[in-house]
């Protein structure tokens, strides 16, 4: 049964819709926890911006990814704690050489138009993601997976059919990698790898993601999309696990201004929003049951331009790193549970154990003493003070941190710092062209594994604005891809970073949000902040 006639389909949708309504009306308690459920299962949340796209292969931002996770389901998905769970793939196996993954797809997965979700849909989607004609900004993501021929396809040297993904039959998908990659399954949670419906895309072209046109295989359907105003999803009766879904409707309201979003949260127009900057402590006191702070897979750091003297001198870089008191920044300036950073990779990263970096355990006095000694050794002191400029993109928060750091450097080392803020795109251009000495940086992991951070230190990385080169790191990174336990490699890399200080890790981000106490099932432990509406429910209130 490849496709149902429209009449049959219509009937089926109505019937299943009716069953869904009946079951949610009668099931007044949560099947596991036994909590009383609200009659109206609607979740309304703030979206900080209109997403550039909700097309899985084009999604590039947090808000768009959240919508895509409701509308589509990839091979694998996540449990509340962020660990892997079967999605469309029920199970998978790996060949002895660890380069070929074979995924076995569930036979009851359907598109919202009734078609079966098959291995061909994944082949189509993955080829589409790297197709130069689609020109997805996330094509590079698939490049990280080292699927066979991925680079050549993106460069247009090989046809998309050369990509290392094959449908063995309707329900068996094979992915072939150039080299073993232990965390390949983890990477399949990302929207870029979610299936997309070929016939619908060919029929509607760029307009296929409009409400009414969009056909998905996720737990929800897009019913309304008003640009820059709202995105509404209702549950998809054809979703294979629809019986387990409780939440009927998800409304995303696009509200750019965070304080306005907070006002609307106060007026009960929203069930979830972010804590406005600088308000965490106050709100934690006022609304202890609704204010949450949880670690994120993101790091805030300063980078040096290693091509510019005196920052080609390791001693200078280290001295500046030692003289920064991270605790003051996290406690006194940020104050929302952020974690002082001494390594680039956040401690919350899966399977990553934070190495003991010397700097982390030193007392403040020792750090300052070491810093002064290092700087003096490099030839800077009261008679010849070090002068430099910190570049950051215009923002109150970045400014406060830059002021604090410049004060620490001035008081402790006599360094004279100029602060230079620039509008975002101008800043990126400055940083990318290497026209800086010290610049602010931030990085969020694409997948939950340390390499998503450490790859920035690779000499050829597109993100390596420091122009940092260390052959040992390149070698350790290449090797780590194939190891069952890459942690020793990561520890060594972090130790090299700490010693050579191409960057100064400053803090690891936390996500701070307000969530109404009746909203349950929010995955607070998921460091990637990937939430799935199908896991959530509203209790009686």
């Amino acid at each position, binding site marked *: 049964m490849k496709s149902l006639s429209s009449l049959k389909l219509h009937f089926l949708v109505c019937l299943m819709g009716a069953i869904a309504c009946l079951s949610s009306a009668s099931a007044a308690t949560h099947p596991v926890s036994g909590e009383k459920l609200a009659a109206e299962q609607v979740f309304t949340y703030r979206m900080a911006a*209109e997403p*550039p*796209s909700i*097309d899985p292969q*084009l999604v*590039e931002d947090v808000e768009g990814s959240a919508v895509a996770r409701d509308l589509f389901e990839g091979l694998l998905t996540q449990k509340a704690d962020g660990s892997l769970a079967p999605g469309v793939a029920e199970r998978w196996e790996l060949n002895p050489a660890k380069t070929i993954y074979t995924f076995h797809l569930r036979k009851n997965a359907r598109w919202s138009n009734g078609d079966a979700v098959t291995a061909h849909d994944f082949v189509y989607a993955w080829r589409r993601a790297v197709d*130069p*004609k689609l*020109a*997805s*900004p996330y*094509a*590079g993501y698939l*490049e990280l997976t080292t699927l066979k021929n991925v*680079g050549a396809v*993106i*460069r*247009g040297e090989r046809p998309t059919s050369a990509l290392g993904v094959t449908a063995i039959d309707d329900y068996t998908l094979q992915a072939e990698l150039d080299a073993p990659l232990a965390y390949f399954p983890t990477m399949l949670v990302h929207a870029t790898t979610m299936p997309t419906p070929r016939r619908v895309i060919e029929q509607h072209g*760029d*307009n*296929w*993601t*409009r409400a009414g046109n969009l056909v998905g295989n996720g737990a929800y359907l897009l019913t309304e999309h*008003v*640009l*820059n*105003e*709202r995105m509404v999803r209702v549950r998809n009766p054809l979703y294979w696990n629809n019986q387990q879904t409780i939440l009927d409707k998800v409304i995303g*309201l*696009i*509200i*750019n*201004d965070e*304080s*306005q979003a907070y*006002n*609307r949260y*106060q*007026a009960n*127009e929203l069930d979830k929003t972010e804590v406005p900057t600088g308000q965490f402590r106050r709100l934690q006191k006022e609304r202890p049951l609704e204010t949450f702070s949880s670690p994120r897979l993101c790091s805030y750091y300063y980078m040096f331009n290693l091509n510019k003297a005196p920052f080609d001198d390791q001693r200078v870089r280290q001295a500046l790193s030692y003289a920064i008191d991270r605790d003051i920044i996290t406690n006194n300036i940020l104050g929302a549970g952020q974690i002082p950073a001494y390594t680039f990779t956040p401690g919350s990263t899966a399977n990553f154990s934070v190495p003991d970096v010397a700097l982390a355990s030193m007392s403040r006095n020792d750090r300052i003493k070491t810093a002064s000694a290092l700087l003096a050794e490099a030839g800077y002191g009261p008679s010849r003070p070090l002068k430099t400029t910190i570049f950051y993109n215009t923002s109150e928060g970045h400014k406060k941190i830059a002021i604090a750091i410049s004060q620490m450097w001035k008081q402790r080392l006599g360094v004279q710092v100029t602060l230079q803020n620039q*509008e*975002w*795109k*101008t800043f*990126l*251009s*400055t940083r*990318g062209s290497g026209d800086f000495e010290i610049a602010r*940086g*931030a*990085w969020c992991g694409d997948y939950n594994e340390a390499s998503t951070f450490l790859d920035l230190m690779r000499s050829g990385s*597109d*993100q390596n*604005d420091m122009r940092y080169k260390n052959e040992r790191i390149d070698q350790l990174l290449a090797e780590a891809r194939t190891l069952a336990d890459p942690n020793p490699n990561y520890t060594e890399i972090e130790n090299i970073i700490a010693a050579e200080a191409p960057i100064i890790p400053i803090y690891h981000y936390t996500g701070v949000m307000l969530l109404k106490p009746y909203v349950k099932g929010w995955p607070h432990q998921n460091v990637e902040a990937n939430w799935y509406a199908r896991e959530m429910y509203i209790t009686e209130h």
Partner: protein
Amino acid sequence: MLSFILRRLAIAIPTILLIIILSFVLMHSAPGGPFSGERSLPPEVLANIEQKYGLDKPLYQQIFVYVSGIVTEFDFGPSFKYKNQSVNDLIASGFPVTLVYGFWSFVCASLIGISLGVIAALKHNSWPDYAATGTAILGSVLPNFVMAPLLVLLFTVYLNWLPGGGWEGGQIQFIIMPVIALATSYLAGITRITRSSMLEVLGSNFIRTARAKGLPPHHIILRHALKPALLPVLTSLGLSFVGMITGSVVIDQYFSTGGIGQHFVNAALNRDYSVIMGVTILVGSLTILFNLLVEILYAWIDPRIRY
């Protein structure tokens, strides 16, 4: 008159072309591009994207392709930021919204502004004058980015009378706060121009003659004074109208109305070239159109003006 209109419309074409070329060059000379981000794209990926949007071509060719797209198909190109939307889509979805709240803001601002101005002029240097000018100035010293949060705190958070934002197809309860916030920022200007122009007219000889003839005061004001006094007001109203119907970034961002006002700032920050061009051309054309309308209205109001 007809030849005047035709002449003005003919001049409009090179004017708009000049606007297009100037903004195109200015925009492309700004550092960074639409596809730069915290995550730098691999060069091959960036190359594909630039090819897709024609950014790999020389600038003069890009301008040519862009202009010919507008002329032949009225196509303002795809948005670089919103992947599945064209500039036509963005304007088609946003402009009706700003048109509604902008129109009502204009009606409120001009009715209240002109009335306050007339009252102030008639009761020159007395308490109604001070009250009217005071009210208008209060509106202008509270910029709409201060006004908007105050309104929300009062009507949404404390009184719970109005929804804090959204549009929902333009239902009345969603329009009230955006209109108040937008109208008040134009109110002061309209009041002050009306007041000073009315004062001037009231002091002129033909009004003195009318008074001397013993005409009733309301007759003098409505029949004789108001029309000439409105001439300078009209000039500013034409531009205010364009300003209001193209919305405001504060209103759109704060009240999530979904209008096109937000694109003026966001598109520039995102380097969304085609959207910047689209809204620039829209405002440019509307400005030219309304200036022309104002001039036609001049001739209608003031018999001394002939084209």
